[in-house]
């Protein structure tokens, strides 16, 4: 126990390993005090420190040096010290700063959520809903790009990108050759591939899952349906390249999308390969484990019921059911 350090976040104490970041310490506590993160991704080395949404106030540096830190710090990059006291949602300064960060992230965002396929599972949408202002003060033209096809399965909408660099880290760390990256600097920075080079790697599809916004989306799912009308189901298959543990998104009988399983922080549990993601869209390819648990605050869980089949209240009458079906067929819109 002696090598563990004690840190207090919003009045809740937790003991963590030295070298843990404030964000991860907060995630060990869980709940509302976890700072939101747009660019940090626990499965990708070196991610974080770019979006500034996870800013927190350190009101007491450590037991030895109790002075507060002069500025708000990015909790994904700051490691804990023994006796550190951190204020997240209890500090009005942090809430105010985060509001500013959201406004900044939304400056060049087209706000085309009604069109975007990410709507409903978008981190930026959640963040804007929680912390953002309802109005924008930005009066100038937002930067616009033509949408780019990265291969035949992935679509890049540079308009929506917030430059979190997660996808470049995926390409660097998960796939063996990176062909896309960030071009330009400052306001001109954009994610792109040189001469729209196709990414053809077994794990390139993971850039879709790590993208916190709708910049990188699944082209096979493009405009198929809204995520909240689909039903997520956990399934697995024996895959030679990846773990094969995925979430299938059903609409009726049809699998319209396959993604990796995402946890409460919108991070994938295990990366999956492109064969699982794009090519296996039949129920017969998968072993179904059961419905995916979705937080009841998510729009995806709306109109979904715990019991799939309501318990029969009256005794089943096959003759009546057949007659009803016949009547239904007769009056159905042709």
């Amino acid at each position, binding site marked *: 126990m002696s090598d563990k350090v004690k840190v207090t976040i919003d009045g809740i104490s937790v003991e963590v390993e030295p070298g843990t970041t404030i964000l991860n310490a907060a995630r060990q506590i869980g709940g509302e005090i976890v700072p939101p993160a747009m660019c940090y991704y626990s499965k990708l080395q070196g991610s974080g420190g770019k979006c500034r949404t996870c800013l927190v106030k350190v009101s007491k540096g450590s037991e030895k040096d109790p002075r507060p830190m002069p500025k708000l710090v990015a909790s994904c990059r700051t490691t804990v010290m023994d006796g550190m006291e951190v204020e997240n949602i209890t500090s009005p300064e942090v809430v105010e700063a985060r509001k500013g960060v959201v406004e900044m992230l939304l400056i060049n965002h087209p706000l*085309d959520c*009604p069109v975007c396929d990410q709507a409903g599972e978008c981190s930026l949408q959640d963040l804007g809903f929680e912390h953002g202002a309802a109005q924008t003060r930005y009066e100038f033209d937002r930067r616009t790009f033509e949408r780019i096809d990265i291969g035949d399965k992935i679509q890049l909408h540079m308009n929506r990108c917030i430059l979190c660099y997660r996808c470049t880290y995926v390409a660097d760390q998960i796939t063996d050759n990176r062909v896309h990256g960030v071009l330009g600097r400052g306001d001109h920075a954009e994610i792109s591939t040189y001469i729209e080079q196709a990414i053809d790697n077994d794990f390139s599809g993971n850039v879709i899952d790590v993208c916190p916004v709708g910049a990188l989306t699944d082209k096979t799912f493009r*405009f*198929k*349906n*809204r995520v*909240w009308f689909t039903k997520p189901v956990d399934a697995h298959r024996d895959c030679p390249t990846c773990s094969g543990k995925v979430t299938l998104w059903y609409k009726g009988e049809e699998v319209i999308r396959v993604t990796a399983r995402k946890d409460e922080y919108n991070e994938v549990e295990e990366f999956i390969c492109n064969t699982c993601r794009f090519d296996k869209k039949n129920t017969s390819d998968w072993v179904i484990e059961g419905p995916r648990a979705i937080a009841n605050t998510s729009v995806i869980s*709306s109109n979904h019921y715990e019991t799939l089949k309501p318990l029969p209240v009256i005794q089943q009458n096959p003759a009546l059911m057949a007659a009803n079906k016949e009547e239904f067929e007769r009056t159905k819109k042709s």
Partner: protein
Amino acid sequence: MEALSNRKKVLEQKPMNFWERMYLPAIFKGMAITFRHMFKPKETVFYPEVQREFSENWRGMHSLKRDEEGRERCTACGLCALSCPAEAITMVAAERKKGEEALYREEKYAATYEINMLRCIFCGLCEEACPKEAIYLDGPIVPADYLRKDFIYGKDKLVEKPLTELTK
């Protein structure tokens, strides 16, 4: 049992006297009321021919709007269907092709859009949920029909007439 409040009135019914047993005065009294109503102004209207004026916040049949250039506003975002408590709305989205920019305002549009008027409770939540100001419940009363399938209104009945047809 004792009453909880003292407001209960016990009705006394006396036996009827001769005039009351004849019932004739009561009949004449009733007929007088009936004939008086014949000369009062009518409260009813002959519905399909005569239509009553709707109040300003009346919610009737839905219409899918077009913008000032005559393009369909609906982008099939699904928020109306999500907000619908009766689950009356379904839609299928499609991507706008090159050359269709004059027809649809956004990149995505509703290829089919169906409202089941038998399920609809005209609560107006779809109108409130719409981020594109595309759906309004500003139409008349939904007409009666014989078959259930005829109450599923598609885009042919819901979408506003284009501007060119209106000016004719």
